[in-house]
Structures are given as C-alpha cells and as structure tokens.
C-alpha cells in the first residue's frame, strides 16, 4: 500500500476579506478560513492516485484549533486520516520553523510514507518555501510547481513548466512534490463524505510536547527571520482625479486623453465636436 502525506494550510477566504478601513490591514481574526487552493489540488492529486491503487492518505496541518476545518474537508473529499499540530509556541513560525515541525510530525505519524504532497504556494503569504524546505528536512528528492504526476511501482514521474521550460522528471519514492494550480481541479465532497468526516472521524491533535519539540529545539531549528514591521505600500502617482456622474466623467476623461488613447489603440476616438 502506498502511504501518502498531504500537508495543507488554512488561509483567509480572499473574496470576502474583512478589511480594517482605518489601517488598511486584513482583520485576520474576522476572516473566514478556507483550504488554500493549491493545497486542495494537492489533496486531489493524492485522491487520484488512490482512485487507481491501494493507498492511504494522511492530511497534516499546523495552525489554530479552527484549522481542524480544513482537515475535515480533506477527509470529506476522501482522505483517511487527519493530524492537527496546534501549539501557541509555534505561532508566527516562518517557513524554516514550519518545515522543521512538519518533518517531525511526518517522522512520528507516517515514518514509512512514500509520497509527500504540498500546495506549491499559499494564497496568503505566497512564499512557496515550505515544500522545498520540508524536502530538505526529510532528505528526499523533490520537484516544485508540478502539473501532473504518475506513479509506477516506486518511480514517480512528474511534469512541470518552469521558467518557460517544459520538464519531465523522474525520482524514486519517498519523494516530495508541490502541486501547482494548473490541473487537479478538486472534487466536491459528497454528502456522505461530509457526514463521515464531521461525525464519525477523529482528528489527532498534537502539541509541541507530543512531538518532542522544546523551546531549546525551536531555538536551534526554529524561525530564522523576524518581521520588524509591516506598512502600507506607498502610492506612486495620483495625478488627476475625475468625479461626478458617470456619463459626464466619461466625457471629461475621453476629451482630455483622446489623443493619447487614439495613438495607442491605432484608431481615432477624437470627438467630432473637438478640434
């Protein structure tokens, strides 16, 4: 049987972000969570393997207690087992620390895993670093931004498009792959699946202590970077402001910039009334 681990993350739902109008910052505390879209595709990639062969899928996430939701969602889609790592000590981990913790979980919960899948990047921070760093922690071969994967025996074959090069790569399991947004449109969870996931299934919740992670080990293998401050991006231009009713504003705009626009689009939009 093939043992697959999928590392997933809960991110704020981007199309309904609660913004603090005064500071222009995201109110993370009010944001509704969802499974990061690329992570969901990684779950789908695992499920497509399981559709074809005997496989067991463990989904792992690190986050606050509410992050359990995305594990339940993955279970509803068809994953077998969920593990939540939840500890105040791990709050604010950078990718260096996160990949260390995920590796400790995998070594403890799925020491014999054959394939590790991650989303290529998350929609909130977009560093795309956790997958590659996890591969280093586990000392396994890896490929990022994978569009398609096939597994035959112990050999993993992946296809990807990176920097305008189309690559087909092969490696032996255990291996790690990060899944891009290009393919693996995620399936919907069935009603029965949802019911099973939320009513019948248990999720293992581990804290740092259970993983043998101490303040000392975090000092040695935890975050390397510090966020000194966050600030709003400086606006750059801000020249002309046009206000008023839409029809008038359009007229004012076109009259003012008709030459410029005409030159760019190669057609005249210069008003017949104007000279």
């Amino acid at each position, binding site marked *: 049987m093939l043992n697959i681990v999928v590392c997933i993350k809960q991110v704020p739902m981007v199309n309904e972000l609660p913004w603090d109008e005064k500071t222009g910052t995201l109110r993370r505390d009010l944001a509704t969570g969802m499974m990061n879209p690329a992570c969901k595709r990684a779950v789908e990639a695992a499920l497509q393997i399981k559709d074809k062969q005997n496989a067991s899928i463990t989904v792992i996430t690190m986050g606050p207690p509410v992050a359990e939701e995305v594990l339940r969602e993955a279970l509803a889609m068809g994953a077998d087992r969920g593990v939540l790592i939840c500890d105040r000590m791990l709050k604010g981990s950078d*990718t260096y620390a996160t990949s260390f913790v995920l590796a400790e979980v995998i070594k403890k919960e799925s020491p014999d895993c054959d394939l590790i899948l991650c989303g290529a990047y998350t929609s909130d921070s977009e560093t795309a*670093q956790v997958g590659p760093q996890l591969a280093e922690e586990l000392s396994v071969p890896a490929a990022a931004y994978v569009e398609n994967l096939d597994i035959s025996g112990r050999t993993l074959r992946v296809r990807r498009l990176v920097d305008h*090069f189309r690559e087909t790569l092969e490696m032996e399991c255990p291996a790690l792959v990060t899944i891009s947004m290009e393919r693996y449109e995620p399936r919907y969870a069935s009603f029965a699946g949802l019911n099973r996931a939320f009513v019948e299934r248990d999720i293992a919740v581990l804290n740092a202590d259970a993983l043998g992670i101490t303040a000392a080990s975090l000092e040695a293998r935890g975050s390397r970077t*510090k966020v000194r401050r966050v600030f709003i991006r400086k606006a750059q231009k801000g020249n002309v402001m046009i206000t008023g009713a*839409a029809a008038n504003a359009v007229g004012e705009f076109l009259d003012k910039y008709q030459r410029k626009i005409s030159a760019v689009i190669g057609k005249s939009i210069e008003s017949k009334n104007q000279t």
Partner: protein
Amino acid sequence: MKERQKSIWVFGDYRNYYQNRVTLQLISKAVDLARVIAAEVCAVVVGHDIEEWIMEYTAHGADRILAIDHPSLTSYSTEHYLVLMERLAGERNPDIILIGATDFGREFAPRLAKRLKTGLSADCVGLDITSEGLLVQIAPSFGGNMLAEIVTDKHRPQMATVRPGTFKEIPHNYERTAIVERLPLPANLPVSRVRVVEYERAAQKGHTIENATVIVCGGRGMGNKKNFKKLDELARLLGGDVGATRPVVYAGWAEHDALVGQAGKHIKPKILFSFGISGAIQHTAGLGEANFIVAINKNPQATMMKMADVAIAADASDLLNNLIKELKKRIRD
C-alpha cells in the same frame, strides 16, 4: 590583523538571460548595498559553456566571479547546484546571498537556506542595508496591500529571493574587469536523485496578456460575473486584453489565465484600465511597468486610485457601461 573581506553574492540564473535580466538587476543592487558595508560583489556561475555569463556579469558590475564549468552541468539541476553552492558558501561565508525569484530560484533558494541553516525572505520588492550590515528585506505580506520588513538577525548568510524587474541593471561596460576564479567540479559530486527525462524550451505563445498594449483589469468592485464580462467588450473596442484580480478568479468570474499579479501575469501595457480594484499588493506587484493607469473606483482613497495617472471616482460597472457607449459613438477606424 586584516579584517575579513565582506562579500555579497548573487546567484547567476542565466537560463532565460535575454528575457529575464534579474541576475543583472541583483548585481546592480548588490553594488549599492556593498558600498554601504565596504563589501565586494561576487557572482556565482555554474554550468557548461558559461564564458558569456562570466563576461556579462563582469560588464554589469561584479567584482569577483566564482565559476564552475563542466559538461555534467549542462542542464539546470537543482540538486547539483545545491551541493555546489552549499560547499562554496560553507567555505567562504558570504554575508548575503541574493537569488532571482524565478521559478528555479524560488525552488532552489529555500533548500539552500535550509542547508545553510539560515533565514530566507521570498519575492522581495525592496532591499536596504544598515551600516552594521543587516539586510532589510521588503516582502509582500498579510494577504493584502501590506509590505513587511524582514530581517535575519542571528544567522548568516542573509538570504532573499527578489522579484524580477524590482531593480535596474547597471549599463554594461565591457572594459570592466573582475577577478575570475575558475573552480574545479568537486570529484565526489553525488548523482542527482532527480532524473531529467525530457527538457525543452516551451513554445512561445504569440499574443499574450504579458505583451498586450492595452489591458482592462477588473476586480471585486465590478459586483458580479455578468458585469465583469462586459470588460470583454471594452477590451475588444480598444484592441486589448482582460485581466483579473485573484478574488475575481477565485469567484469564477475570470479564468486563471487572466490573473494579474504576484501569483499570475506581470504586465506592461501602454494603457491600463483598472475597474473596481482596491490595489492589494498581490495584484499591484504585477503592474510594475504599466505606463498609464486609469483607475475607476467608488472609493477615491483606494490604493489603486492613488497609483493611477487618472483616478475616476465612480461605480466601476456604471462607468464601464457609459465608457463603452461613448467609445462606440466616437471610434473611427
């Protein structure tokens, strides 16, 4: 006692040299940073037949080149490059390593940082340095229009990947000279665990949003999918393309192909229309070179409005309908 020579390294990512000059841009920035801390700028080039890159990096400002040229390095190999860079950095202890945020760089850099047991910031849009040599890395953050100042205070080297197009390259000067160290391939280079089965340059698409001269972008402020679809008509009238923000793509109003921004396309139109877009950095990071920006938003305080050459305070969908109507009257071929 002689003080150790400080050094800022730039990794030579030359695979798309003629389309992507990020290595030259980083050498240029490294020259600025090096001035502050009296460091040398060192470009590392590994591969086969790399004389051209050695010459180019020298001409664009590098003081020193570390070069490993060997037939076994003919195609890009993350694992081989990792082993070579880990050894070089381990022997020479650079203060800073800068890597272009290409697909390759963004896979390679995090693994190198892990091997060197140091921090890494991703896709920086700015770099600064203190007189003590602390690299201040400006990276997009918090899922919105925020930038974070990130430092690696306790570990060295300090590492960052940097978004292509962030800095300007120094014009070439083929009279310049650099110390070129040609280093042998280590005898015990391990076999890469990743085998390349096929490797070919993808066919270049003809017309793409990346090279469109007019782009009509829409965001959440368009209200719904039906309103959003009317952007197609304006784009047709102007001979342009439609772009979209991430919330809109996730809502299914537009295809992923149309996504403009950090996770999507980087555009450089002569005219950009921005309808109902607040201006989150995930989107605006893709607009680095937009020439003339016209923003339409109900909220005159929106970031996008402040970035615009012309800001029209109006309901985006309402203004779009009026603009289409008026253009249809005016356009003469």
